[in-house]
């Protein structure tokens, strides 16, 4: 059976001077999957997703996002993907509604369609009580919800979530998990996180990056099986501290 891939990474490499941030990685992410990239700080996760979004040029290699090359078809890649960065990234003096409308329009929606999409997002993310509030007045949790809603308003086929729950309290984090959970199957999602619990809860597949290389790639159960550990955190530590590549 032919499997459809949302993302195909082919020998992707990124060097910053003499430092190799991403070292010729190869990975296929199935369409509709939620794929988590784990790794310690500086492992190369963010650099990898920055290359996939066209925010950083690969030194060599390529990647296909829904079949479009990040080297030669970047405009198409940008049109079908969206992302929510780990830092607060909303227009502070615009209201929640205006932020959503602005993002809908820069991805090509006309006034009527943008208005419809905004309503959908407000409904989906339960933003009704803050829709007229300026983004800068929102709590961290609300801002993160808005940020993800802004990423979803373009109906992306591929969504990149860079540490989406960083710095949130446990309730806000659980609420976002529930939102992300509902997105699974509708689009390919690439998630980077430091929270093992988050990756356990949400991921279809997981990759562990160490020093710019993919050290392990597979499902949660496969990660636990190959390391002989009974939770992802122990499996992660085992892989991150071990040497050599662990094929699953």
């Amino acid at each position, binding site marked *: 059976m032919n499997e459809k891939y949302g993302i195909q990474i082919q020998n992707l490499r990124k060097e910053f001077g003499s430092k190799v941030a991403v070292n010729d990685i190869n990975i296929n992410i199935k369409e509709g999957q939620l794929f988590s990239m784990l790794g310690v700080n500086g492992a190369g996760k963010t650099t990898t997703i920055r290359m996939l979004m066209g925010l950083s040029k690969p030194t060599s290699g390529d990647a296909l996002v829904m079949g479009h090359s990040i080297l030669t078809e970047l405009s198409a890649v940008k049109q079908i993907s969206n992302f929510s960065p780990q830092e607060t990234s909303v227009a502070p003096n*615009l209201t929640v509604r205006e932020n959503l409308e602005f993002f809908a329009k820069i991805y090509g929606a006309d006034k009527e369609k943008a208005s419809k999409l905004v309503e959908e997002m407000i409904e989906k993310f339960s933003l009704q009580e803050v829709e007229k509030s300026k983004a800068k007045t929102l709590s961290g949790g609300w801002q993160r919800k808005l940020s993800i809603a802004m990423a979803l308003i373009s109906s992306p086929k591929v969504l990149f979530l860079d540490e989406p729950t960083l710095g949130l309290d446990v309730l806000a984090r659980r609420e976002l998990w529930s939102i992300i959970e509902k997105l699974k199957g509708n689009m390919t999602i690439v998630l980077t996180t430091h929270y093992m619990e988050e990756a356990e809860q949400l991921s279809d597949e997981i990759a562990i990056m160490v020093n710019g290389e993919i050290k392990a790639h597979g499902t949660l159960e496969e990660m636990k099986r190959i390391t002989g550990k009974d939770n992802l955190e122990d499996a992660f530590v085992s892989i991150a501290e071990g040497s050599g590549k662990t094929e699953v």
Partner: protein
Amino acid sequence: MRSIEFSKRTTKEILRDPLSYIFCLGFPIIMLIIMTAVDRSIPKEAQMKIFKIQSLAPGMAIFGLTFVMLFTCIQLSKDRTTAFLTRLYASPMKSVDFIVGYTLPSVVLALLQITITYVCSFIVAAITGGDLKFVNVLLSVTCLLPSVLLYIGFGLLFGALLNDKAAPGICSIIITLSCMIGGIWMDVDLMGGGIKSFSHSLPFYHGVKAVRMAVSGDMGDASRSLLITLAYATVIYILAIVVMQGKMKKDVR
């Protein structure tokens, strides 16, 4: 389309910052009132013309533009230091959308500021019996356009080069240069020597001079001053675009 949407967003960001009103609109108006009061306390024998409404109004219009520069600069540098711009780089927006999106709101703000400054100047002229002709003022708005481009260019240039902490400091140097050697607050031609030559070599003096000549109804050699200001403005604005595009490319490396 995208550039217009981005312009709308930038306009809202600037207009919803209360400091925009205080500095871009409030401050020049307050200075207009204060300087008019100063003028009234200066003995006629002193023959000080710089604080007469005919000189003061054009000076205030340029003074307001220096704050448009400041806000253009702060907006761009603030966007650059947050993840918001990075997020937009990942969107289908092109570099021209960013350039138009930052320039257009500043032009609108500048025209709004010029209009309010002149409306207030007419009120002051009516109260003090000053001589301010509508036709001349209208002509002076045209003469202000090179300065609009110049100060927006400076705002974009510093906003692209500096972070939001350093940018206001550098802008304040341009504000001071405009006020002092640009001749907004003092008659540079009376000073002579090195200061005069230095002042004449920069665009600020010429920008103020051309607008003052238009308001006075005596265009004289205003066209020379206008051309000098326009030449500087074009160079600074193009430099700002080149630097902005360079920064965008550097961010995506």
